[in-house]
């Protein structure tokens, strides 16, 4: 790969929207009355993210995240909360699966409007070492939804 290609990919990865979510995360904090709270850790980098969810019937009526990590994991968590808050479970699950496809390199997912601003993270697919950063919060959400259905 030419260095200039890599440089362009780096610029695409660290675009302003991602850094903005990193510096000013949305829906970050703890939740006293959460129905499900899941803590996910990435032992490689020491990052940890907690995802806290409250349900109203089949709707994710409230969620937030806590913890610390790199810009990718924090921005991804922040965008996720904006994207799925207030949505029915079936739709949340579809978005989660679609997001996963996007960071694994699926170009159609990267153009899918259902992912909203989280499409800014599509550049992660060019950085295999960082895919798990982008998925950390989403994996926690998946576990929270699975715990609820048990």
């Amino acid at each position, binding site marked *: 790969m030419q260095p200039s290609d890599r440089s362009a*990919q*780096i610029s695409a990865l*660290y675009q302003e929207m991602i*850094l903005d979510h990193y510096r000013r995360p949305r829906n970050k904090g703890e939740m006293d009355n959460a129905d499900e709270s899941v803590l996910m850790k990435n032992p*490689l*980098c*020491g*990052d940890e993210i907690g995802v806290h969810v409250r349900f109203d019937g089949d709707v994710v009526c409230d969620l937030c995240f806590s913890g610390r990590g790199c*810009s990718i994991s924090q921005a991804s968590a922040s965008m996720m909360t904006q994207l799925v808050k207030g949505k029915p479970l079936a739709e949340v699950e579809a978005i989660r699966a679609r997001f996963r496809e996007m960071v694994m390199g699926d170009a159609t997912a990267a153009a899918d409007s259902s992912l909203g601003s989280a499409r800014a993270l599509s550049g992660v697919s060019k950085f295999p*070492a960082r895919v798990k950063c982008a998925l950390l919060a989403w994996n926690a959400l998946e576990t929270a939804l699975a715990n609820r259905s048990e």
Partner: protein
Amino acid sequence: MRRADFPLLVGMPDLHYLDSAATSQKPSAVLDAIRDFYVTANANPHRGAYALSVAATDAYDEARGKVARFVGVADKDCLIFTRGTTESLNLVATSWGRTNLKAGDEIVVTALDHHANFVPWQQLALSIGATLRVCEITADGRLDLDCLSGMLTPKTRVVAFNHVSNALGTINPVGDIVALVRERSDALIVCDGAQGVPHLRVDYDILDVDFYAFSGHKMCGPMGIGGLIGRRSLLDAMPPYQMGGDMVEFVHDDITTWNTLPHKFEAGTPNAADAVGLAAAVDYLESIGMDAVLRHEQKLVAKASERLSGIDGITVYGPRPSERSGVVSFTLEDVHPHDLATILDGDGVCIRAGNHCAQPLMRRLDVSATARASFYVYNDTSDIDALVDGVMKAKEIFGHAAV
């Protein structure tokens, strides 16, 4: 210019490899020696009654002799070839530890240790009811010898520490530690030399530790070969770590007797080719001289530390450069080390980001991770320039979204 000796670096002229504490690059001499073994001497050592097998055996034995001389052990059969430091340390913790320790005994490890010299002792302590004590560090990332002194009692049966910290580069005062331990206890002294042998002159017989472990791949040698050096009296009394071919003497239906050292601890077909490669790495390092290797690294580390420290927002961890080997561990404001590593990678600068297999240390430094640049014989100031440029670029990228 040493870079010319390393085919990977020649093939990637724009690469700035600053992760030698994880694994070093390999010079042509090592790659050629491994190929030469397979082309001229490949057979299973110690087994065949034919000339080729004898050639393989001789090559393996010569490699042991050369590596033993390099690490300063006169009794070369007390150098056991292993897969590397991790296997060496597990061998000691399992074979010596399970035979000699009991509930109530105390094992001392340090907050500077790599997981490979921490977890085997922790798990051993848990399984037999021994107590694990962790020696703390000073604010500048050196072992706190007062803390160590306070932990040593007649109950202390093992003291395990590293010669050089992989995460910070701290060179520990082995002589002072050994004197302290010997004065206050009869503890076994186990030294993790994974970051020692590649960077410093190591003389096992003078260090006076009981066990010393090291890896070939961090000292220009191949992956998958390393060593454990131990006192003959201890090794002779220990049970084998793995059972199989080569390590036995007589196998009866009901009992088995063991081969002599070093074979007792080298079950199965030995990794002769990589031992030959390691011996070639020893020749390579000796052609430079270990004093020159350390001088070169410390010059680069001093320069890198000075330039990084001059950047607003950078924190450099560990003692002053003259007390470190070729490692600079640092963080940049709220830029996560993984983000920094990704941005540096974009310019061909390879650094390590993470906890460096030293989570207990990271907790004490109150960080989840650091960025680590580590230097070796093929690095020069152009690598420092690239590192500093990359850090400035990361600052610029992250600076756009100021709080």
